[in-house]
């Protein structure tokens, strides 16, 4: 168990390096420039160099800050995002913890990240951080609802909270294809709401560099700041993996119910490639958002949730329930 | 209105005004305590309608200070320059025109900062550029700063 844990941590760190590199390259691609290209082959060691720099920087604690909470906050943020990684299935028969309330576990743990962010903003003794923390509270609590509702639509269809069973239920086709338009709506809402949940542009109001100079992590430096970055990338991976698992079948290859020959050909592609392919596709889409959209304003952000996404998800749940009861899905 | 007509109408309003027509604009030179009544007339009367104060500054002529107001009418497209003469250079003060043109607020702060003219009835008179405890007023001709390099 300990060995698996250590392996998982190592995997997450490597993953974050890769995501950091990918983000820079995607940004460069969107912004008609080259991106990192000096350190290591094709600039791949740039992120390692940055980490080393952050490691050697002084971890400053401001004078007026609540020292205990200020130093605790980054750990809480990282721990909550790492906890969510546990029930993810990376490949066929490769799941660390197949808990029978997987979906519930994911959605409840991921909402704890707001505690860390609020703590960081509050204890910094900086007015910009405080505004950032308050924004984050309003934002994460609101978007939690939409995420929950869109996950529930699949729970209704598959009849299980367990991630492995949800994946199994997609053996004859992924839910996004089987579930008609309501599931597609759920999927889109999930992507939008989870982008907001993990505080990435266009919903990065808690950081909002141009408004709040860095938001809740304005006062953090060195490794403590790196913790926030780490948790941002783990979160990015987690929500993409969850979206891939719930809506796109996780490690399940692309199957079409009834076409056995086609399904067998698809099975030859390793299941881990299917999982990571789908996950990184969604990660790319979320990065694409980030580098093309301007940021919303706080009232527009809350309007979007309470006036549009939440009512739509509620009606959508009704449709999905009707579909499940009547057996209209494939 | 042409400069001649402006001159004629303003003489009716304020007989003490003197004129200088050597430059591009008609310059009206008035004593500082006549400023507000004249300005109010220039702003409100339909035939003047000077609604745009585009330049507000001061000149230090060593024996007196001269406030300079450049006015333009967006409707009639005529310009005028009002110069108010402040003779008391030890303790110069003049009425603020902030109640007529809002742009005057920051401009008068600037003049207060650099020339030391106090504006009466100004909503928030403060040193705009320099520190509160800065000694002297840099744009005055008698200002000396030993750190200043003569070019």
């Amino acid at each position, binding site marked *: 168990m300990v060995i698996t844990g250590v392996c998982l941590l190592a995997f997450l760190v490597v993953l974050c390096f890769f995501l950091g590199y990918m983000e820079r390259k995607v940004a460069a691609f969107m912004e008609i420039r080259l991106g990192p290209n000096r350190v290591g082959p094709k600039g791949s060691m740039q992120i390692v160099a940055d980490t080393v720099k952050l490691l050697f920087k002084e971890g400053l604690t401001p004078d007026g800050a609540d020292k205990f909470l200020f130093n605790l906050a980054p750990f809480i943020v990282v721990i909550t995002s790492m906890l969510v990684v546990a029930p993810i299935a990376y490949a066929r028969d490769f799941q660390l913890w197949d808990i029978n309330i997987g979906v519930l576990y994911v959605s409840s743990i991921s909402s704890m990240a707001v505690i860390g962010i609020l703590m960081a903003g509050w204890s910094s003794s900086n007015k910009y951080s405080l505004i950032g923390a308050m924004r984050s509270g309003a934002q994460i609590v609101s978007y939690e609802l939409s995420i929950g509702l869109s996950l529930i639509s699949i729970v209704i269809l598959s009849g299980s909270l367990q991630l492995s069973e949800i994946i199994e239920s997609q053996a004859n086709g992924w839910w996004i294809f089987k579930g008609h338009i309501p599931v597609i709506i759920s999927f889109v809402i999930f992507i939008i709401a989870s982008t907001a949940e993990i505080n990435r542009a266009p919903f990065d109001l808690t950081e909002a560099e141009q408004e709040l100079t860095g938001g809740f992590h304005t006062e953090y430096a060195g490794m403590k700041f790196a913790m926030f970055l780490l948790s941002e990338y783990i979160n990015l991976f987690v929500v993409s993996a969850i979206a891939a698992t719930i809506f796109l079948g996780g490690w399940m290859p692309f199957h079409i119910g009834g076409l056995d020959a086609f399904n067998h050909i698809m099975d030859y592609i390793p299941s881990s490639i299917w999982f990571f392919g789908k996950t990184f596709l969604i990660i790319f889409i979320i990065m694409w958002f980030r580098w*093309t959209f301007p940021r919303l304003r706080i009232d527009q952000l809350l309007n979007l949730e309470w006036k549009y996404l939440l009512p739509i998800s509620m009606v959508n749940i009704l449709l999905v329930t009707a579909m499940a009861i009547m057996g209209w899905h494939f | 209105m042409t400069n001649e007509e402006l001159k004629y109408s303003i003489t009716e309003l304020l007989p003490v005004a003197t004129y200088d027509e050597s430059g591009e604009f008609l310059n009206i030179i008035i004593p500082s305590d006549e400023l507000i009544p004249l300005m109010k007339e220039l702003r409100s009367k339909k035939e003047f309608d000077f609604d745009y104060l585009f330049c507000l500054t001061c000149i230090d002529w060593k024996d007196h200070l001269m406030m300079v107001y450049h006015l333009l009418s967006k409707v009639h497209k005529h310009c005028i320059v009002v110069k108010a003469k402040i003779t008391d250079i030890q303790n110069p003060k003049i009425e603020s025109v902030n109640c007529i043109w809002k*742009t005057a607020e920051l401009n008068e702060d600037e003049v207060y900062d650099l020339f030391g003219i106090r504006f009466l009835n100004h909503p928030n008179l403060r040193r705009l550029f320099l520190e509160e405890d800065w000694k002297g007023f840099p744009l005055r001709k008698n200002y000396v700063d030993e750190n200043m390099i003569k070019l």
Partner: protein
Amino acid sequence: MLLGQDHITEEGEFVINMGPQHPATHGVLHLKIGLDGETIKKIEPHLGYIHRSIEKMCEQLSYRQFIFTTSRMDYLSAHINNQACVLAVEKALQVEATPRAKAIRVLMAELTRLASHQLWWACMGLDLGAVTPFFYAFREREAINTIIEETCGTRLTQNYMVPGGVMMDIHPNFQKRVKEVLKQIKEKAHEYDELLTGNVIFQQRLKGVGYLSKEDAVSYGCSGPTARASGVSCDVRKLFPYDGYEQLKFDEILNTEGDSWARYLVRLGEMKQSISIIEQLIDNIPEGDFQAKTKNVIKLPKGDFYQRVETARGELGVYIVSDGGATPYRCKFRSPNFSNLSAIPKMAEGAKIGDLVAIMATVDLVIPDIDR
């Protein structure tokens, strides 16, 4: 200057200092903001962090030298600032620039305006959280700067204008390069619209935000695109033409909405007008001298001289008081940004912090021009 001492603080008000070090103030502007939650109650600008007392320096510089200090005011319209000073001196001396010099000046001024608006567009996106437009606008801006560098030798503070004309003739490649860049800008114009103008989030961030009425725009002394978006006709190039603008065909872009979106549209329209002006002139630069003869030591006659020009941000006025000597007795620069800044507290009343950033972005402040 710091918290808790000024009259802006009322009981229970949350005061934050935006700047002098802040990503959205584009320099060392310091706005003290009284907040109620995230809603702005009051703004008080504190200036002087980049005050160099250019007006005092000018009193010691000759009429050939003082022109160059103005490049450091609104550094994005350096050419146009220089032009204002040069025109003021010419007006006092009653000298006229040669036709070729006038055409070159207008071309350079419009290229500067184009480059300046491109930088504004780039920062506009950046301020609202979209990083990508920055690089797209800089692609064309760099090309324009390279053209200017070829002729003037510098990219930002050009110091190219002298009384009577320009310092040297244009580079032989100038016309060819300008045409290439104009072609490139026209081809890429749709990218600008796709990235920002058509974006729903972007439109929502700007529409109805930072409303400035026509009366307020006039009363606060606003000029340039800020005033024109409120329906105030104030283009100096139209009202008080200089350097041959009266012979060129272009429109004054007006909008009556008065919000940030209107200001955005006015600036986009102005970019198109600048392109049209450059196209009219680029093949019609008259032959002849690029400089009229002036004396080595310029002495202005006694009197006041006022010259205004239209910079990328509004009306710049140069007010020279001469006592007949070789240096100005008093020199005042009426800077457009100073007046536009004074309207910002009015525009941002009741807005959110995010709105304030959008308002500052559309007003396009350049801080060294405010402080001088």
